């Protein structure tokens, strides 16, 4: 396989969540994290799952990733039902989850080394391509602790993109960052998503973030975790989180949130 072939995009994937239920046993009894949730994600779509903490949106993401299994129902990916993690679906977490014993480039190479069919030189070229894409080509040899929070998430993004997955699963990846860094990353993520034609499922509890990034915002309610409502966001891209138009959409979603149960108060605008 050549680098050109490796860097070429395949047709984006499609995900189908079919009536997925999942409950956890806690000290206070069973908690219904997800209750018969169904959701279709189109090829190349950017879907934001929005809801208060504990509404099961992260659990759903883990099930799509194959890190957890559903009690009932199933998730269909490209190759049939999802039962285990796969290279076609890469995940990004709130903490960067980068490996401190590896430098930046070797972190990006970690997933590539597990992908068959690439030679050493090709892997390095691919890693360099993605580090450049996230603007960190000058930090290849840095160690993780030497990077700022925003840079860490950029490396994590490069690491998730490197094996060329068709689906990117993002679990509040920007929640721990300061506002300025976050805004830069909104721009970068939109650009990269358009360039690389990924299908993205993005979990957040921030309404504006969801409106800024998503083609579609899927609103969850908690106890039990269910899909409450869906909003299609047709604003042109790239979107600016501070634009008035965007704020109008966010306000509408916020109003809808507040119209529901009181637990949705945990959602921030």
């Amino acid at each position, binding site marked *: 396989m050549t680098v050109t072939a490796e860097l070429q995009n395949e047709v984006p994937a499609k995900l189908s969540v079919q009536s997925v239920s999942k409950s956890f046993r806690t000290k206070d009894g069973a908690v219904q994290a997800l209750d018969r949730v169904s959701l279709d994600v189109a090829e190349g779509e950017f879907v934001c799952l929005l809801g208060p903490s504990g509404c099961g949106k992260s659990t759903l993401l883990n099930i799509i*990733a*194959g*890190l957890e299994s559903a009690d009932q129902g199933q998730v269909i990916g490209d190759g049939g039902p999802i039962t285990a*993690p*796969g*290279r076609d*679906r*890469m*995940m990004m*977490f709130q*903490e960067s*989850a980068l*490996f*401190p*014993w*590896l430098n930046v480039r070797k972190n990006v190479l*970690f*997933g590539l080394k*597990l*992908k068959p069919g690439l030679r050493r030189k090709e892997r390095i070229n691919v890693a360099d391509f993605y580090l450049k894409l996230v603007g960190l080509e000058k930090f290849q040899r840095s*160690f*993780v*602790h*030497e990077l700022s929070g925003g840079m860490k998430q950029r490396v994590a993004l490069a*690491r998730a993109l490197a*094996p060329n997955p068709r689906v990117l699963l993002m679990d509040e990846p920007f929640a721990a960052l300061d506002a300025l860094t976050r805004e830069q990353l909104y721009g970068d993520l939109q650009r990269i998503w358009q360039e690389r034609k990924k299908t993205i499922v993005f979990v957040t509890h921030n309404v504006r973030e969801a409106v800024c990034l998503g083609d579609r915002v899927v609103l969850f309610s908690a106890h039990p975790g269910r899909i409450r409502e869906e909003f299609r966001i047709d604003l042109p891209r790239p979107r600016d989180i501070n634009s008035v138009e965007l704020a109008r959409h966010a306000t509408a979603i916020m109003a809808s949130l507040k119209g529901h149960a009181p637990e949705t108060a945990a959602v921030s605008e």
Partner: protein
Amino acid sequence: MKRVIRASIFFVGLVLAWQALYLTHFWSPVLVPSPLSVIQYLVGAATDGTLGAAIVVTLRRLLYGYAFGIAIGLPVGFLTAHFRVLKDTIGLLALGLQTLPSVCWVPLALLWFGQTESAMFFVVVMGTIWSVIIATEDGVRNLPPIYARAAHTMGSHGLHTWTRVILPAALPYIVGGMKQGWAFAWRSLMAAEIYVTILSGFGLGFLLNNGRELNAMDEVIGIMLVLLLIGVLADKIIFAPWERMLRRRWGTAK
């Protein structure tokens, strides 16, 4: 460079103070020999080969037992971290045996193995293994689960996750355990060598005890200096580079 000079001045001063004490003849020269006589002993023992041979014997015992202790302790630590049933059994046993001063293995080793190399090997292994098991188990248990999760999403599982993710992630703990194991093994080996003579090899502990039996204080102090030097060198050569590497990568200032 400034630090080297400072250290040199300190140690030269220490030797001068020793010489001054010797010159007062307040204590018998049998109890406080001059620095020169200690150096003369060391030079003599080095030229006739006894010192070199003793160092080789002692370090060989130490390294064999230490390497074996780590080779067993690491995987056992991983297993006790992974299986609760092993933590509740072997892990608990290791915790108990680690609190036992490793010198206490010497009488048992002598009764089991007699005055043989096996007894020495056993004592060193017992000094090493429990610390390594406990540190490895601690290290693995304290890892943020996110590392393994991230690795799984990238297609790592089974042995690959253990060797490429969990082992390096737990390394700060493991190196700490190896250092403690080294200290325990070194102390118990010295105790064993002083305690009992083994005809297949005369180690540094034997020379130390020999000095006592001959009332040769120059030999006693000379060997103690050699032991001290080996301890410092082991720390600088074996452990310091690891710790530097860990500090650089993890960014922990100790």
